[in-house]
């Protein structure tokens, strides 16, 4: 059976638990689909060549650069963005968001969503050890904080995650 290559495609996926279905150009990047087609602008574009990590979202459980995926590649996928992190409620934040706030782990905030989505996607036990944590965080650029308070925030959030902060199976 032959298949045809096309310039427009039908895309159906869920973002933050809600169904979306659009006909889009084949070349539309997932990042632009999320921001422009769906209108969730919490995902930021910092480089559009897959280095800075600002556009990181979770696709089927994995953190990915949304600027390095076509929207059509996410057809059928479950996508999560930063807008999905805080529990519902006027002032509520997730533990990691709260730790970022408490530790002054963001300044301009442009990179923050990418860090949060990377962190949301991983098993803390695999990345808890200091060098491993820095390795994990090296997939997201931040220009304001020198990373120090981000490391502090993650350490704090993850120490509360297991209640003792001591385990290291990474």
């Amino acid at each position, binding site marked *: 059976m032959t298949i045809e290559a096309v310039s427009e495609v039908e895309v159906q996926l869920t973002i933050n638990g809600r169904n979306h279905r659009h006909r889009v150009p084949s070349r539309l990047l997932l990042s632009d689909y999320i921001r422009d087609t769906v209108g969730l*602008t919490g995902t930021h574009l910092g*480089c559009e060549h897959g280095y800075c990590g600002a556009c990181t979202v979770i696709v089927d459980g994995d953190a990915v650069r949304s600027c390095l995926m076509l929207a059509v590649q996410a057809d059928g996928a479950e996508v999560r963005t930063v807008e999905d992190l805080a529990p519902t409620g006027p002032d509520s934040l997730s533990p990691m968001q709260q730790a970022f706030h408490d530790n002054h782990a963001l*300044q301009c905030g442009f990179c923050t969503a990418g860090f949060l989505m990377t962190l949301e996607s991983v098993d803390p036990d695999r990345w808890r050890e200091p060098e491993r944590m820095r390795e994990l*965080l090296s997939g997201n*650029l931040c220009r304001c904080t020198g990373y120090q308070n981000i490391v502090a925030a993650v350490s704090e959030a993850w120490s509360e995650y297991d209640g003792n902060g001591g385990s290291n199976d990474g």
Partner: protein
Amino acid sequence: MSLDIDSHIRHSSRHIGRSVPRREDRGPLTGKGRYVADIRLPGMLEVVFVRSVEAHARIVSIDTAEAEALDGVVAVYTGADLAEVETFPDYIPYIGPVTQRPLAEGRVRYVGAAYAAVVAVDRYIAEDAATLIAAGTVYEPLPTVADLDQALAPDAPKLFDDWDSNCSFDVAPHKPEVDEAFEHADHTFTETYVSQRQTGLPMETRGVVAEVAADGTLTVWSSTQSPHMVRTTVALMLGMPEPQVRVIHPTVGGGFGTKTHTYPEDIVVPWIARRLGTPARWIEDRMENLVASVHAREQRHTVEVAYDDDGTVRGVRCASTLDMGSGEIFMPGTAPVFVTNACITGGYDFPNMEARTTGVVTNKTPAGAYRGFGIPEGALVMERIIDRVARLTGTDRVALRRRMLLRPEQMPYVMHGGGRLDSGSHAESFERALELTAPALQRARSRYADDPDVRVGVGYCNYVEPTSPSYHLTTGHWGGGDAATVRVDPDGSVRVAAGVSELGQGNVTAAAQLAADMLGVSPDDVTVVLGDTERAPYGLGSWGSRGAMMLTGSVLLATERLVDKARKIAAHMLEAAEADVVLTDGAFHVAGSSQPSVGWAEVGTAAWVRTVDLPEGMEAGLETSGFYHPDNLEHQLDDTGKINAAASWSNGTHIGVVSVRVSTGELRIEDYIIVHDCGTVINPALVEGQVHGGVAQGIAGAMYEHFQYDPDTANPRFASFMDYLVPTCAEVPHMEVDHFESPAPEQPLGVKGCGEGGTVGPPAVVAGAVSDALSEWDVDLTECPVTPVAVRAAIRAAAGSGAGAGS
């Protein structure tokens, strides 16, 4: 202005000095920040700029027909279409004149110069059109100059035909006392130090959205550090009355100096919105950002040093030359090299400095502002000189610095260029940093004790940071003060609006803390408005480590005026003498008894609503303004060529412990120690955050980031983050930060600025530490960045094999 803080604090649990959590956080944390790229307006069109791929060329023709015929393309404009738009102002008389049109016309002088604009329904189609226009552009290439030597060669091709050479300015003071120092010195040496081309690189690129209302008023959302300055320039260039132009900076994703300039896109996008009567936007992509936002730091310093056998540095002559790129930027990027020379002596008592300042144009991206603004370049020179003299004379590097450092009893101290250090902890900071370094050095030495391939070294930097500088020398137009307006509404809520802007520093939170303490309320009761020319008074924005000082000065002025009036109202309501009425924790009462009292809501209601309750003859309303200009901030050179161009001077010490792997040249900062003094601290967490971020950018410059150009074509050899190496979390070390607080005696509440100091130390520290680590080869690094290749080249050179011999 008064240093007596307590007389201004009217809240018993004072907020100034506490790490009040930031109110700026919630938007970005939850994805609800509103950056310029997040703005959606009905019918908004997308603008893409077509940029020169030639470093120096005449544009013979631009064929736009194919692009205009594309589905979804609305319009294409070239320079000729913008004939009605004024040329960028050229306010500085002593530099070479540059005629900068909003779109380049006829000639381009760097890769990245915008010469056409496409308007389309989306960015994808606009880029399709831009690709076609680029292919349809015929250039006549001109010879290029890619660096200072090429630009200054006697027969160099000129960027500007009406200039005598590529030299934009050359200021060469002569100091007889320096001649005398050289005559009496035991020895001299000469050396050349080099800092490389870098940029601030905010994670958010630039962006402009413009919309014209039915009444003709123009609203511009710009990711700028200085909305009022953009307003003034947009109005001027588009020929509009300033009140009809509103510039808003929404949430801004960092600036670091790059967004202090008013760029062509700030003019062209509003022009397009007016021309088409449709909202238009342009969001810079990263490929553009690397060539179209200003670069910085590319300086060369040729020094002659006179010194004695005992290590005394008697005098230095320094010729500092700035590579300005094409110079086609508003404001011009000329000022940093003057700051380099003004600050070059750092925290040291060193008057015998003669500094020549030169600016040269080349076929590269225009140079401009970057956090640090010339200071790191000078610190590298001074610290390398001290280490060299120590080595040549067998003097201990630490002891020599101790001998040279400024002591408290020398304050106020006038530096060689006129900078007046009002206060500081120069010697104490160094001592404290040394204490913190000892265990770090021990740790590093024991870590590598068993690895014969690794050497460990220490590098030092003692710097001063001019804060709240004059903008007159930089722009040739604006001054250096800033305004705030404070209002208490009928319900007692407070609103503060100020000309300082917020790009991540936490100025909204800081403004709330200041107003809260001065009015005796909680920060939660204070609404803060920054970054909107319609809602905030005229101000120059945030740059030059000025936010904290300008907010403090202007909010203090405005609140004192407001409290004076409110006290009169309260006294009237309390039926007490005004002189007896005090304000504590949001309520006016007679001194000595907390009851009866009148709160802000009652005063506010009387002022705006129940005006019948006002004292007879009092004008209604409760809104006051203050325009703060530091008394001692100078904007003009004096007869001797000196100037104190900063309102105050912070200081600090950086010390780094660095390990070097000899076989591969790999280096690692093991520990980085900062002792920092920015006077009275409003919010310690925010100050610490500024230090961390500044140091990380300093490390970026010391070891990683470098815009390289092809020497033959002046074409960029970078296009992405794979070429321009922004450090990640794995490269930036843990930093240990300690503080002194030496209040600025002449500034409100003693506050100094803190935004830039972090960037200053790392180049000097890393070059010093690596040279120290490799002292067995007599390595003496003179350039940044210090890379593995540079390290190996230095070892090879010392070993006599000659770098490059194997290639």
